[in-house]
């Protein structure tokens, strides 16, 4: 599947526009893959600074060097706060980073529902963590629309991760009220939802809307923040939703798994501190 790259390949510039007048660029050492699935355009490029970079429709999703900020912060706050997670659902997350973090825990089952089967094939080839994760016996991979899955399935989970793309474009529905309402029905007693919530700078109005309707649905609705160097604005927001599990107890009882690079208990508390413009 790899595209043969001529030796005379000059570093190509990949630009991602964040606003009409600013953005991010990479000088790619080489392009590893470029193709179009039924859902989106997929590119994998190799860069000096961030290793392999996955772009969907030209937007950075994951890079080898900085994926841990995002994936650790999506997964560990919920996994550490829940007393005993056994059944976990991941909506989206085709690059497998979220799955890899979830499998660090002694869970019974992780169901991953990804809409684009071909993205998984590409990531399996270029991102080293995905193949072993999918071989894990606890993993059940479903190629399906996450929104359809929660409409049709009646399974319940301890933790649901929403690892969608941004609230603009095909993932729009995964950021709406009706989606979260249905999602709640798939939570076991004491269940937790952790969702990526976009850039607090660029998706500010969507964040504010979401907080309004979520507050009527869950007892604990907290945004938390983490840096993701290659995402727009660098500062990224996540949502912690639960009726019973408080993400900020007096004492966090469980220790995170060893070997993490960003998340620890101090970071956990600090992440939930919000600046005035987000309060």
């Amino acid at each position, binding site marked *: *599947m790899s595209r043969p790259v001529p030796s005379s390949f000059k570093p190509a510039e990949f630009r991602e526009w964040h606003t009409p007048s600013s953005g991010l660029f990479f000088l790619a050492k080489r392009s590893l*893959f470029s193709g*179009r*699935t039924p859902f989106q355009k*997929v590119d994998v490029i190799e860069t000096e600074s961030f290793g392999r970079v996955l772009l969907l429709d030209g937007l950075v999703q994951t890079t080898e060097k900085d994926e841990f900020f995002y994936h650790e912060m999506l997964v560990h706050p919920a996994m550490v706060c829940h007393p005993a997670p056994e059944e976990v659902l991941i909506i989206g997350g085709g690059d497998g980073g979220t799955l890899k973090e979830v499998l660090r825990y002694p869970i019974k089952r992780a169901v991953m529902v990804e809409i684009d089967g*071909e993205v998984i094939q*590409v990531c399996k080839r270029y991102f080293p963590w995905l193949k072993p994760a999918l071989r894990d016996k606890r993993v059940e991979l479903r*190629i399906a629309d996450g929104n359809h899955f929660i409409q049709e399935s009646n399974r319940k989970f301890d933790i649901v991760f929403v690892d969608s793309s941004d609230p603009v474009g095909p993932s729009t529905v995964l950021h709406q009220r009706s989606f979260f309402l249905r999602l709640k029905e798939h939570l076991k007693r004491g269940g937790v939802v952790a969702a990526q919530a976009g850039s607090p700078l660029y998706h500010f109005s969507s964040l504010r809307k979401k907080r309004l309707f979520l507050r009527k649905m869950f007892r604990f609705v907290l945004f938390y923040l983490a840096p993701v160097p290659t995402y727009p604005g660098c500062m990224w927001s996540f949502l912690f939703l639960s009726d019973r599990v408080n993400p900020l107890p007096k004492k966090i009882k469980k220790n995170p798994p060893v070997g993490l690079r960003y998340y620890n208990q101090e970071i956990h508390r600090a992440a939930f501190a919000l600046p005035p413009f987000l309060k």
Partner: protein
Amino acid sequence: MARPGFYFIEPFTEDFLRILRVEKVLFQGRTKHQLVHCFESRIFGKMLFLDGKIQSAEVDEGIFHECLVHPALLSHPRPQKVLILGGGEGATLREVLRYDCVKRVMMIDLDRQLVQISRRYLPEWSKGAFLSPRVKLLFREARSYVEKTKHKFDVVISDLTEPLRGTPSVPLFTREFFTRVFEILGDSGVFVLQAGSADPHYFHFFGSCARTLKEVFPIVRPYWIFMFSFSLPWGFVLASRAVDPLKLGELELGRRLAERKVRGLGYYRPKLHRTLFSLPPYLDRAIRSGRVLEDKEPFIWEA
């Protein structure tokens, strides 16, 4: 006792039906060329029906497509250019791409929408094969492509639907078409086609395909497997300009698989190669009594 729910009825003949409980409808609708149903069932997994007839099921599509592709690609001394006719699900393509010696695959399918539906709902079939830069996919009539192309191929694989009355598959199973396939093959070129069911009731299509190919190719080797999801034995015919698949020993086949970096097969193996080609007497008779199919009197599937 059957569970309540929705059931799909698949007519095998006018008198014999198969009834299957549908767990979930993934897609149903009509493309420009055919009626498409994608279902999920408990025993067969995801299933694809075209014009109401089963095409493949998750549980054993691997068996079907491995048996369609590997005997032909292993028979050829060095397959580099491959032509696939039909095969919109992408599983035939997936099997062909396992060979690192294959440089270019041309795939001709009439139905663009079917390819999109398969990639969307049945990605387990193509496993990303459509993204490969080695693949060139054209949406057009296979007959006109084969008649007009100036390319030569090492292997041609025909993975078409049965020639139901009025469908575009009808002119793709005739002596005239097979002759043109012969012409676009290289010197040690190999042609393989899926040739319909090989059951004791309706073996005429299989027999006639083999019989017709014998008019065109010097070496014709029919073979068969049992397909669980079709509930039928299924026939294939390998026709070749020079190489004989039966002259390949187990050791040589194993060596070719390793050399061409083909790994991870679930059904085909060198030990099984010869048994595929062992036919029972009734199929020998079917071939002897088969009709030479011609453009003016093609085969029309009536079972």
